[in-house]
């Protein structure tokens, strides 16, 4: 599958030293809107307020109220009208304010967004993006810390991606907007303030591909979104003990691109999958299934999952216990190596 082509150069603010992931998404949205007048941004508080996380800051001021829509408080309405707008020829980018609020829109996503292309055998395309800040670790109240990505990865007809660093955030949001398939774009909210330098002249990495972000030989860590950084930190810590961990950022959850994982596991023989979501019937369990099928004779230990527990997201004063951290990841690596 060809990566979406970025053929037009986009104006970039002078001297982009280091940018946060939040700002990177903002710049990505801006670039997409400048390139294509059919790109709309819509959601609750995305206009004057710039979004509760300020991801859409300044866009309404520069592009106007018909390009950046402060919408009614109506998630089914946001996604449902985006369907109509997409059918009309627009490319809407919806913001769901927090992942726990996506469920009123679940009907529209599963019944319409995911199926219109299939139902009409390609006569209708749904080039819309649903941005969803997700995950915990920010000390929030209920419905503001969940990881519902498996529901959507289970849904044929939509694609699901998650960025883990500012560089990917900048490019992936633009690629998602360029995609003719509907994309759910999960943003790790607790990493919004992570910084990195972005080369806007670089050739972007393809959207629906996973990527080795730290090569290694001892064992493989696969993760996505907020836990990629946790895994990288774990690998740094393990290096002090003489372990050389390979870290893979999955980036795309549907379709899952597991070829780099297979290749890595064939070398290391050990795989630990880390995710904040409950582990049962999850992205992590899907990976475990496919890896045991593809790499059966290479595995030195079962695929281990380090995930959130199979509970509703807990009160935030115990979320540090709930969320997989560096120690839990390293513990799993040790268990795998000791098998």
């Amino acid at each position, binding site marked *: *599958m060809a990566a979406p082509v970025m053929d037009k150069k986009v104006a970039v603010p002078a001297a982009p030293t280091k940018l946060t992931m939040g700002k990177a998404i903002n710049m990505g949205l801006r670039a997409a809107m400048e390139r294509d007048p059919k790109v709309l941004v819509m959601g609750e508080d995305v206009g004057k307020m710039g979004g509760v996380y300020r991801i859409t800051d300044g866009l309404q001021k520069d592009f106007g109220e*018909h390009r950046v829509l402060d*919408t*009614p408080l*109506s998630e*089914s*309405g946001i996604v*449902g*009208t*985006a*369907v*109509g*707008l997409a*059918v*009309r*020829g*627009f490319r809407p980018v919806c913001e769901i304010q927090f992942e726990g609020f996506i469920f*009123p829109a679940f*009907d*529209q996503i599963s*019944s*319409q967004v995911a*199926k*219109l*292309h*299939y*139902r*009409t*055998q*390609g*006569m*209708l*395309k749904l*080039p819309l993006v649903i941005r969803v800040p997700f995950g915990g670790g920010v000390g929030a109240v209920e419905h503001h810390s969940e990881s519902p990505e498996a529901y959507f990865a289970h849904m*044929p*007809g939509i*694609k699901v991606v998650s960025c883990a660093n500012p560089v990917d955030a900048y490019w992936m949001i633009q690629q998602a907007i360029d*995609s*003719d*398939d509907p994309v759910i774009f999960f943003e790790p909210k607790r990493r919004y303030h992570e910084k990195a330098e972005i080369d806007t002249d670089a050739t972007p990495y393809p959207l*629906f591909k996973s990527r080795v972000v730290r090569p290694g030989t001892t064992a493989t860590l696969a993760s996505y979104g907020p836990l990629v950084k946790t895994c990288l930190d774990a690998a740094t810590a393990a290096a002090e003990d003489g372990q050389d961990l390979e870290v893979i950022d999955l980036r795309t959850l549907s*379709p*899952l*691109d597991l070829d780099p994982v297979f290749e890595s596991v064939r070398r290391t023989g050990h795989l630990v999958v880390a995710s904040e979501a409950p582990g049962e019937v999850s992205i992590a369990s899907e990976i475990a299934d496919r890896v045991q099928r593809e790499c059966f004779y290479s595995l030195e230990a079962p695929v281990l999952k380090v995930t959130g527990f199979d509970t509703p997201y807990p009160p935030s004063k115990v979320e540090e216990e709930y969320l997989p951290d560096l120690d839990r990841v390293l513990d799993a690596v040790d268990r795998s190596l000791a098998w």
Partner: protein
Amino acid sequence: MSSPEQWTHPEPGGGPAATAAKPTPEQVIAGLRATNEGGAELVELLTPEGERVANPEFDKYVDDIGAEQLRGLYRDMVLVRRADREGNALQRQGQLGIWVPLLGQEAAQIGAGRALKPQDMAFPSYREHGVAWCRGIKPEQILATFRGTQHSEWDPVQHRFHPYTIVIGNQVVNAAGYAMGQRFDGKVGNEPDAEATMVFFGDGATSQGDVHEGFVWAAVYDAPVVFYCQNNQWAISEPTERQSRLPLYQRARGYGFPGIRVDGNDVLACLAVSRWALEECRTGNGPVLIEAFTYRMDAHTTSDDPTRYRLSDELEAWKLKDPIERVRVHLVRSGMAEPEFFDEVQVEADQLASELRAYCFNMPDPPAERIFSKVYAGGNPVLDQQRDEYLDYLAGFEGGAH
């Protein structure tokens, strides 16, 4: 069942409220049924007896409907009814998995469908065979859905008629969004290419959150969308009284746009009111809610048994309001049609039914590849592998046949 008179509200400032007995559910339903009767609020241009009645407000919207045009509306309704009856028969013969009959709603659909201009967009529910007819979709194209060979066969862009929507109310929000797009594209105003959207749903759908959200969105964005509710009195077995305490068209007031009730069995009135509403939208006055007050004469679908939940008296009463018969009587009495015309339409209807039947019998089943076809616009390697493996598996059978 108790009469509505037995349930009375205490007068404000009158007797102590505590003395008023709480109404039983039966009393509530009886009272609500009263609010749902047609009465003076109903726009009607052609009575059930076939009399043309003057209406100073809406007559001008059907000034151009002379004898030829009225005969055309009659023909539309007869042909659509005939195709619909054929759909029922084909289901009974095992040729279709299910059929969704429109019997009784021909006027509501042809009136609205003929009010649409080519550039307008229509979003149907799943019973809109009459509207589909007006959008140039052949009855054959609808069969695929109910036979199970395709989900939606027609090209929604070419016909400007969205795929049928099965999930109740989803299409109302989608239509509001499409209409917002028409406005953003500058297609609202007095120019001849101005556009509007019309979305179709039933009385049951008005209980869905999506319909509420569609109303809110259309209102706050002045979206040029006509909400066309065919109140056919029954949502499968649930009566309109289970959806609302108010006549449905009155809900529009709460959203800040006009609501109007039309005799849904009067094709002329449905045409006039729909034209008015679409014009309101095209010129930029924002949404309109039309409640076409009609009756579903047949089952909800061929899987349904309406004798379990409604009285035959009700059916008999509505038969007297038949949408086709009143036009026929009017055409005859006013000398606008000769007997030969009715014979010709009958022959045409029989021909249509025969073609529909032949088409149905000859529809090929799709190949197994269809399962995997066009799930994604940009492909999906995981799915491609799954398809290849399954087709290889099938090819392993003797002769590779499947």
